[in-house]
């Protein structure tokens, strides 16, 4: 195919450079669409499914009662629990049961959220953290302490066990 010969202006490349720089300068003063991850992190929407963690209620009681439903439902079997009992002299003795050990293998977790969904005690919630890293496999099996650190305290709508304890103390008159 026959090529059109270049004009003089085209031969100097000047118009192209100027128009190119024009685009560059225009974008320099526009709002940025990229962000400087990891220094800057994107906002995480409500209901995001990140790493699962255990939570405490406002009284500081660990909410998990080691019913092991999450362990059962977890598709990749990331959770392993050793159930235990709460000592009789504890202020939460009426809850009777709490996990002795509670491990989640973050390398196995697929952030499906089934554990949160199945939990009858509202004790496990998926957090907004998605960046979980470490230098060894062992490091990424989070134990109970770590999971409570991550989960922190969460508001409670029911205070089921507290009410139960109050009922036990006041009793209901029966003679």
């Amino acid at each position, binding site marked *: 195919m026959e090529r059109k010969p270049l004009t003089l202006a085209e031969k100097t490349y000047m118009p192209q450079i100027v128009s190119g720089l024009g685009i560059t300068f225009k974008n320099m003063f526009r709002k940025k669409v990229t962000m400087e991850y990891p220094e800057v992190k994107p906002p995480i929407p409500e209901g995001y499914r990140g790493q699962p963690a255990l939570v405490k209620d406002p009284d500081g009681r660990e909410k998990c*009662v*080691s*019913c*092991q*439903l999450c*362990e*059962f439902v977890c598709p990749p079997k990331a959770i392993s629990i050793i*159930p*235990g*009992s709460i000592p009789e002299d504890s202020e939460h003795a*009426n*809850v*009777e*049961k709490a996990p002795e050990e509670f491990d989640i293998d973050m390398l196995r977790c697929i952030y499906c959220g089934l554990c949160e969904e199945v939990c*009858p*005690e509202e004790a496990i919630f998926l957090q907004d953290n998605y960046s979980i890293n470490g230098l060894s496999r062992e490091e990424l099996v989070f134990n109970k302490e770590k999971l409570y650190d991550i989960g922190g305290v969460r508001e409670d709508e029911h205070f*089921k066990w507290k009410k*139960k304890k109050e*009922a*036990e103390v006041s*009793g*209901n008159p*029966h003679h």
Partner: protein
Amino acid sequence: MSEDKKDQLITINVDGKDYEVPPGMNLIQAVEKYAQKEIPHYCYHEKLSVAGNCRMCLVEMGTPMRDRATGEPILDDNGVQKIGWMPKPAIACNSNTSPGLHIKTDSPLVKDCRNGIMEFLLVNHPLDCPICDQAGECRLQEFATEYGRGYSRFIEDKNVKPKRTRLGPRVTLDDERCILCSRCIRFSQEIAKDDVLGFVDRGSYSTLSCYPGKELANNYSLNTVDICPVGALTDTDFRFKMRVWFLKQAKSICTESSVGVNTVVWAREGKIYRITPRQNDGVNDTWMSDSGRRLYNLVESEMRLLAAKFKKDVVTTEKAIEKAVDILKGAKFGIVGNTQSSVEEMAGIQSLAKSHGAPVMFVGHIQEGDDLLISKDATPNTRGALLTGLTKALPYRQRDVVGRNLKKGEMKTLVVFNEDLIEAGVDKSLLEQVDIIYVGSQQNATSEMAKVVIPSQVVFEKAGSFVNQNFRLQKFEACIPAPQGVKSDAAIITSLRAGLGDEDASSSLAKIWESLSSDVKEFEDLSYSRIPDEGVQLDGSRFDQLNYIETGSLHYEAQPELAETA
């Protein structure tokens, strides 16, 4: 069913369909067995008296109508006898089958009844499922899902009752969960004959408790936990240990005594959590002893042998077997068998003894019996030793066979299977004169003296069969994997025999049974896979002249002569 004679059957009608059933049979059972329908129930238990207090089993019932004056059947327009339906529902658990009986198990009225009963039961029931050990096998949960309304209309405060009550050394009671079915009370009265439980207070304050100053301590107390339809009675030992839905079940046989109680072993990831009875109406009905439930402690006991030893040094099992073979090759040896061994292991020992002319000796083990499910013979397979020909006399009727044989001084080596000869009273100085090869799962004074120690599997780690006091052949399955390097007795015997040059040595159950069925008259036509779950009754008449020690038990009658002298 072969035992129901055809001409005796009657017809009943369940939900519009006719079924042939035996007359006078309990309705819940008849409907379950012949119509394959479950009538939901709480208080009814097949092996206990009928209490009729939970009302869950309400059904509509009707009988064919007859004229009161003449007794003539009343027919409808089509010439079919009319059914007189009772105006109100009736409980199925307290009704028996009768000719022409009609029942409806899923009519709107029946469904409404169940819905109402469930609502009443749940009114004061705590929200304990997440911490309740019964969850997953709870009749209340199951029937609430099936027949309940799905939400609660009760906004008042729930009753408060005692929780975490210690009823006895092994049973914990949560009264809030109790649905007052009285099964546990009836069990204590009728089966355990230890009347310690009862209800106090009335109405919604009714509470199960022990009579003052008493506790539920008998050796059958944990059966109340099994039959409690809810999580009110829990096993203190199993409490909070593991959720039942994780546990794998395997059928086993209790080794506590020659009764041969059928059991289910519940394990997860190689760890046994509990043992419960398995129904066998010819052996243990639906019960078992508390002591038998704890036998799984053998698996992880401190005395468990886990490593093979040669002259006190730890060696591999293969090496230990090699050494044992070397020792056995040289000199005349004797074998101390054990009536804890399975029929298959005994067959192996028998072949070993026969081909090398070794005498087989036994040590007897007797205990206090309770005439229920623990017999005086403390081992599960004495009859197996008789049948396989390993012994002609009853071990517990012989006095110090081992000692007497050792005194003759012919034997240079003793192969001991799981037996503590020191404890059995054999003279230590006699034992010191021979080399001992000890094959067993537990460490004891004899294994300490042994030149070669070969660790072996406990009953939960292997499969095999026992013959109980009624000459009932029953098999058990392997429930958990054995620790690494620990072999079954059958495999060890096979290796020993192979090392000694026996050519037919095999530890496969099928192979062993091939020779058993040809060698032993009573085992004719049997093979391991052909033993049904409930066992096979064998003919034990060949050994009738032996003086068995057992007195009666649930399904065993003592020998006539013995009963007279006892």
